Structures are given as structure tokens and as C-alpha cells.
């Protein structure tokens, strides 16, 4: 089993901005490796009972994030998760079924210690899960992921669909903004009463859908004009590295997941 260096390494004709060699240990791991590690983290956070699971994961994630300089990104994700965290805490604090150890009585509401405990633990699991996913996302550019999937055999259509879908979100948002502007300029109310704004649904959704459909034919032709349906394998300009350490890490991660699964199923763990 040979190690795969970047295709770029053998082709000095490729400029730097195309090669986009990642820096840092974690960044330069193969995308599949990072996905396996993220999967392991999620499994550990949920399958290992008590505070141990989420605790290990959060500690490992923070360390890795610090090492790979993605702490800021993780902080943003944490902040984005705040509303969800708050609602989890509120729900558990006040409405945990079977809890009988109130902290205080605030009129009809009675927050409980068990609720607090359970809420915090659920929050920890949620943060562990979202941080694991976030770390993989922050350290893996989408092109690297697609290029790796291509190398492993995902057809060009699959790659195209995923790549275009990812790009589609900002494009659709942009388009919705333009359409909203056009309809507002025709007197559609977006700042007034809610029931008037509700009438704006068709004039907003219509152009988004029709516009997208109208584009499909031209986009299809443009793809054909670039040989998209040519037979055979697509040339890959850049392939993310897949080194010995990647294989080792992936095997360890998958083995650990299997072990944890077996322990849980046979009841040896909580």
C-alpha cells in the first residue's frame, strides 16, 4: 500500500495558488482521516456515559484546535450554538420529568438540581458533537474533500453535484436578495404589517424557482461544451496527500468505534 503524495508534487507547472498545500499537522491530514476522527469524537461523546465521554472529547478538541489555530472558528460555532444551549438548559431545568430536588420555588416554576445536572451534560454532548464537526469543517476545504472523493472513485457527476450544491447556498441567497429588491421596487411590502408581508411569498419564491429552472438548460449546455460527459476518468490536478500516519489514524479510529459499539451493545459500559 503506497503512500500518495500530492499530484502537484510531481508537477512543478502547477502554481502555488492551485496546489494550496495546507500547513500544520492537523490541516495536512487527509480529509477522510479527519472525517473518521470526527466520527470517533461523536461516538465517544455520546456512547461513553457520564461526564467522561463529552469531557474527553472537549479536551481533545480544544487541544487540537489550539494546535491547529482554529480556536477562533470553534468559538464562533460555540456562540452560534448558544440559543440552542439556552433552550436545552431551560427545558431541562424546569421540565425534567421525575425530578424531585428543587433548587428554589419561583411561583409555578421549580428548577431542579437533577435538571441542572442533566441539562449541563446534554449541553456538553451537544458542544462536543458540534465542535467535532466544526473542527473537520474548518480544517478541510471543500475542494480537498471533493478531490479526495474523486480519487477514491466518486464519479464526476457526484463531485459536481456536491460542489455545486455547496456553492448554491450563497448564490441562492444572493439571488433571493436581488429578487426581493425587484419586488419591493414594485411596491411589495416587506417592512409593514406581517399579513401584508405574507402575501409576498409567491412573488419571492416564483422567480427563485423559475429563474433557477430557466438557467438549468443553459448550464447543462455549458457543461457539455466543456466535455463534462466525456467517458473515462477525469484528470485530477490536485489530490490531497494520504500518508502512512493517515492510514494508522483511520484504522485506530475505526477500531475504537467498533470497540465502543461492542462494549455498549454487550452492556459492559453504562
Amino acid at each position, binding site marked *: 500500500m503506497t503512500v500518495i503524495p500530492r499530484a502537484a508534487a510531481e508537477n512543478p507547472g502547477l502554481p502555488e495558488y492551485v496546489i494550496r498545500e495546507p500547513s500544520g499537522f492537523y490541516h495536512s491530514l487527509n480529509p477522510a482521516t479527519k472525517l473518521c476522527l470526527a466520527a470517533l469524537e461523536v461516538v465517544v461523546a455520546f456512547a461513553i456515559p457520564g461526564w467522561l465521554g463529552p469531557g474527553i472529547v472537549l479536551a481533545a478538541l480544544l487541544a487540537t484546535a489550539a494546535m491547529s489555530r482554529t480556536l477562533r472558528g470553534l468559538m464562533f460555532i460555540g456562540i452560534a450554538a448558544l440559543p440552542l444551549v439556552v433552550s436545552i438548559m431551560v427545558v431541562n431545568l424546569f421540565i425534567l420529568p421525575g425530578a424531585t430536588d428543587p433548587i428554589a420555588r419561583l411561583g409555578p416554576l421549580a428548577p431542579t438540581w437533577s435538571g441542572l445536572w442533566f441539562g449541563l451534560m446534554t449541553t456538553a454532548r451537544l458542544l462536543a458533537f458540534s465542535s467535532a464537526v466544526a473542527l473537520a469543517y474548518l480544517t478541510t476545504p471543500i475542494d480537498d474533500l471533493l478531490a479526495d472523493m474523486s480519487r477514491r472513485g466518486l464519479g464526476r457527476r457526484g463531485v459536481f453535484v456536491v460542489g455545486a450544491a455547496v456553492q448554491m447556498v450563497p448564490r441562492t441567497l444572493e439571488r433571493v436578495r436581488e429578487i426581493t429588491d425587484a419586488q419591493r421596487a414594485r411596491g411589495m411590502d416587506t417592512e409593514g404589517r406581517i399579513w401584508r408581508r405574507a402575501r409576498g411569498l409567491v412573488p419571492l419564491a416564483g*422567480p427563485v424557482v*423559475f429563474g433557477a429552472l*430557466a438557467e438549468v438548460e443553459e448550464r447543462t449546455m455549458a457543461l457539455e461544451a466543456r466535455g463534462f460527459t466525456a467517458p473515462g476518468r477525469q484528470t485530477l490536478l490536485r489530490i490531497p496527500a494520504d500518508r502512512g500516519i493517515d492510514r494508522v489514524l483511520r484504522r485506530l479510529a475505526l477500531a475504537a468505534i467498533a470497540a465502543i459499539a461492542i462494549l455498549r451493545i454487550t452492556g459492559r459500559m453504562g
Partner: protein
Amino acid sequence: MTAPVATPSIDLETVVFDYPDGTRALNEVSLRIEPGESVAIVGQNGSGKSTLVRQLNGLLRPTSGRVLLGGLDIRPTHVARLAGLVGLAFQNPDRQLFAGRISTEVGFGPRNLGIRGPALDERVRAALDDVGLAEEAATNPYDLGYSRRKLLALASILAMRTPVLILDEPTTGQDARGVARVRGVVARAAAEGRTVIAISHDMEFAAENFGRIVVMRGGAVIADGSPADVLAVDQAALLASTGLVPTFAARTGARMGLGRTATAASFVAALDSTGVRGGR
């Protein structure tokens, strides 16, 4: 037929506009447009033309500075209300088409303004007539080709009968007949006392149909005057700085020593005055 509401004057007072990412799209632009003027705004992509006209109907609000319609600051007014005063026909018609029938599409604007019944039907009919789509009232908008969809989008703004009419690139993609239609619309609106503002890449179209040309570059107005003054050959360097070239009539007139002749009419007049008369 005159405009239903008195045409307001338009004032931009040192308007600055910054996009959320920090790019400055308008840099202290001050401009006054009198009621009933016909103005063409020209300049390269990114010079701020679209940003400027969107200040006039409230789609964009100044970061600093004021926009006045008829002497009143428009900041407190909703876009939906301004739409009855300032109509803006967008460059890409597919950004607004949603109805199954052309008549419904054209009726959307006036309907939002509270027009109903026979008055609504009359407006739709008149607008479709103006752009040459009267035969297609029951057709699905997407059954029209792109250029006729553009005319449809124009009709849907015309039906709103706003005293100020803004056209964003009305002639791109149009054939000769489409351009003639747009010319007719501009002339008719001007005759009715409406203010007409058009953004255009077509220098000949701008020179021939508008009495005033505003040239933009980098978010600022760099020239403002009649076609003869602005699209002149001695302004070539200024125009070139924003990717533009004087009209063919201007260039030919300059080469022949006829002075400033940005339009065909002024060229002919200048030629006539030199006493050159050919045998007929």
C-alpha cells in the same frame, strides 16, 4: 396624459454609501435632477451607477448624506411607499417574473399601489401597448424570449405610472425594434412631464435620447452636462478613465473640424452650417 402626481425634484446631498464589507460605492455624491429632466447615467461597471439609482427608491439608504424627493428627506419612508413615486425597471427581468400570465405580472405593481378593477385593466393594457406586447396578455412570461421579457419587465413598471422612471440598461440584448420601443417609452414619459433616468452602456442611445449625461467613476460623478459637452472628443481622456468612448458622431465631427457633435442631429446641423451641399 400627464403624470398623476406632480413630478418631484430629486436631490442627493453628499451621499456616501458603503457596502457591509466596507467597499465605498458612492463617495460624497451630490446631484440635483429637476422635475421632468431626462438623464442618462454612464460609466464602467462598478462605478456606482446602480448603487446611485437604488438610493432614489429607498432600496439602499445612504451611509451618510441625504436623499430628497420634492425637497423632503426620504429616509423615514418605506420602499413600498416610494415605489409609487419612483419606478425602477431592473436589468435582469428574470429576477421579478413570477406570474403565469403576462397581464397578472404587469398588474402586480399597480395592485400593490391600491389600483383595482377597470382602472387596473386600463393601466395593464396601456403598458403592454407601449412595449408592443398587447397581443400576449394571456401568454406565460417564460414563453417569451429574453429580450421580450425585458420589455415585459419595463411594462410592469410603466403600469405603475410613477412620476419618476428609472431604467437599468433598457437596451441590452434588444434588437432594433426593441430599442425603438424603449426610445418611444422614454420620449412619451418625458412628454408627460415625468423624470426619466436611464443607466446605459450604449453611448449612442444615451446621446440621442437624453438631454443630460452624468458620467461616473469610482463612486463619484466626474462629468455632468449635455451630450455635446460630455461625450466630446476633448473629453476623451476623462471618458476613457471610466471605459467609455465618445460617440461616432462626435469623433467624426471632431475629425472634420465641425466642433462638438455628439448626436446625429447636431452633426447634420454643423455640417449644414458649413455650407457643404451635395448634388441631388
